[in-house]
């Protein structure tokens, strides 16, 4: 099966917010939830003249690559609306080639709700140790000595209570 991803040309991400709002409209995500958002680093000075100031669209665990759209042959909605036209959707092999063509890009294969989409836990272990049937006797005392074996801070006598 072909793996699809998103290639981001973050050299030109301007933090316009269209990806986030488009995603939320498409999926009806409430305030506080989104499939994509923009993170910012900067502005801070590299040297006297030049600035580091980058925005990064980050896909979250609610990105599903818009299956209703992509199944119909269209691009995900963030790709369609991105004002700076920096997002490309496609098979990772093709995107990887584009990735090699210019710097300041990154390639992402998102996964929708990865923890939530796991199957319910069922133990796969079949060969387990079976508890043995052996009779035991009590010591009659509880011990507080948990930090060091030679620091006996107290004992609990089963008949008389705590003794210091």
């Amino acid at each position, binding site marked *: 099966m072909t793996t699809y991803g998103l290639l981001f040309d973050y050299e030109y991400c301007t933090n316009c917010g269209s990806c986030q709002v488009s995603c939320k409209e498409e999926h009806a995500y409430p305030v506080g939830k989104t499939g994509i958002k923009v993170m910012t680093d900067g502005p801070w000075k590299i040297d006297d003249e030049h600035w580091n100031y980058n925005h990064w669209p980050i896909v979250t665990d609610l990105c599903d690559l818009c299956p209703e759209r992509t199944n119909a042959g269209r691009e995900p909605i963030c790709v*369609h609306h991105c004002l700076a036209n920096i997002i*490309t959707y496609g098979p990772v092999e093709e995107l990887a080639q584009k990735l090699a063509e210019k710097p300041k890009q990154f390639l992402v294969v998102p996964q929708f709700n990865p923890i939530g989409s796991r199957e319910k836990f069922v133990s796969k272990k079949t060969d387990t140790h079976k508890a043995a049937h052996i009779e035991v006797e009590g010591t009659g005392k509880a011990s507080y000595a948990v930090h060091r074996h030679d620091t006996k801070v107290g004992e609990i006598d089963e008949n008389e209570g705590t003794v210091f």
Partner: protein
Amino acid sequence: MSEDEFYKRAEVVKLDTLSDVNDIGKPWRYEENGLTVTRTSPWSPPGCHPVGCGLKLYVDDDGKLVKVEGDENNPVTQGRLCPRCVALKDYIYSPARLLHPMKRAREDRGKADKWEQISWDEALDIIKENYERITAEYGRKSIAVFAGTGREGGTFAPYGTMCFGTPNFCYTQSGYACYTPRLAAIAYIAGTTYPEWDYAGALPKRWDDPAYDQTEVLMVWGKAPLESSPDGFFGHAVIDAMRRGTRLIVIDPRVTWLAAHADIHLQLRAGTDTALGMAMLNIIINEGLYDHDFVEYWCYGFDELAERVKEMTPERAAEICDVPVEKIYEAARMYASAKPGAIQWGLAADQKTNGMQQGQVSVALMAITGNLDAPGGQILPGTGAGHNEAGFGFEKGVGADLQAEMIGLAEYPAYCMIILNAQADLMLKALETEEPYPIKMGFYAGNNLMSCTSMEPKRWHDAIVKSLEFCVGLDTFMNPSIEASCDLFLPLATVAERDGTVFTHYAPCTVTAGFMHKAITQGEGKTDYEVCYEIGKKLRPEVWEEFATAKEFMEALRLGKREGGTYFDKVAENVVCQIPVSYYKYERGEMREDGGPGFATPTGRVELWSTAFNQFGEDPLPYYEEPEFGPVDPELMKEYPFILTTGARTIAFFHSEHRQIPYLRELNPDPITEINPAVAKRLGITDGQWVRLTSPFGECVQKARITEAVDEKTIHAQHAWWFPEEDGNEPNLYGNFRSNINNLLPNFHFGKLGFGAPNKCLVCKVEPIAESFDTDMDLIWEKFGELV
């Protein structure tokens, strides 16, 4: 050129990220998966200075808008959309949207629960009754139409001329410090209007069109085009050009993203731009870097300009602007050597007292480098451009006698005549003092002046509430201005509920012409042209006899046609058209009504020495004037040690709009003040803490963002904040005056021609406060999240 060619369907240039399954070539309306799709090109509302991006509206069988998507058939936007249109559905079906006319007794102004729903008929009757009573006593001039910015209503002059018949259409921002000063500067100097950067928007093959010449250097000056994207220009065209190799010079007191990615960033002290521009002229002239032929044949007053800019040496400018002198040299040489080079001048030009002079130096730079009307330089509108919107119906509806009484006309003709507007500051004076005469009735044409477009907003508030006997608000939502002062509310139709036109830059500098198509009906909202027509017909039927329907009026106003609406219907099917562009029009007599070569100025040339400025009593040559509030007054700076610059746009909102749209509010929940880290450390302010900003005129509180985007002398604060989730009753008025940066900005500090205001170069002090006013996004979601 035949008309069919003028409004011809634009060719499409497909983006490479757009899938092969797409809607290119689809008609203006079509069916898809059981939905009716309407392609449209929106203007307003919601607010937008006209760009006319491509929009597809998907409507189901019940007539409900279920999806909005960018239309890839638009040659400029190509399917891309900014978040405000992406969230259009939430705006239209917001539970806070108002869909019916409402009335309220005058004594109940400021009481949010006193509105009573009425019919349009009753609303029109109420307007007529008040109009007749007030005009009988005070005359039609006592009516003021208060315009906002950007929306169709903001420039809908027929409200003044034909509807109410008053000369007092008024944009209330002190010194009209928005757009018009720049227009006035180039109109008086070069006889044309907005010289937009040529981004190949009107060329069929766009950037690859053979007629286009890729801009080598773009100087972005006092403008944040990415965030102010709706201002007549698709802002991300700058990014498209950067990808194709265009290099940037950015002149801005803030480190914007563009500034950080420019070859040269001139981080000047706010308000000193004119000194910088004069110094660049000085360098370009001294070093002979100008276009000698263009100057020789097409400019007037070059020697006088050369003499004048001698006084502004780069060294002197470096000191004034607080910019390294070598960077000024480097920028001037880079811009002058670029073939073609272009300038994008921004709002900062208007928002200083001597803004006209900044406009003047910008035009001089464009002219002497030979970039006016050159491909990849500045597009110049020729004689056929513009629709005379401001003058439409003026003679018939107002008449010469009443026009002469326009407030401010006698004092500031250079202002009032160019835009046919009452001078803003003198309007405030008239409201406060009844001089030269009383103002008794008001109409808000899509305007929230108390949150956004008025300085000292509490002063405007008090003057309006006290003076106006009757005031009408027209809008999509309630806002603080209407809540405080209106007696009647009229619902406005959104872009999805209306038809109409949209021309980039309001038409004078048209790159694309777009057409709006009504896709849905929601409530009883009407468009500006319908409201104008219906009120006008009710009040003054004699003025409206020539139009049988509102659509005929719109067709005449917008397209200059009288074909019963059929011409509109025909061309509107094209949705978006590229207006044919041609270059070097001044060589062919296409810049002047008389058909002669040259420019439409008294001397026929670009007037570097301005005859018009001289006639209006202004210096004909550019000069630098220190901002009145700033280092020129050391005593003042002791108390207010920071330069305050305000109003940089945020992409989440259109000015005071959209605060009740959760997805947009989430992008920018609180009013933000930017403070340099060193300053924050010194004053004990932490990131995210609330601060009090104070100027000699007032104060407000905002939330601090500690960032190197501003230097240590500068504070930047967002504008147009109010809180629709809060109590709307007076005195809270949705928190209108709490974070309102306009509290700190004055009226009556404009330039000699009546234009300009120091909104981007004032002074302030800043102090941390203990209280937090953080927006509770859960409350926003709870109140506005569930659509109706």
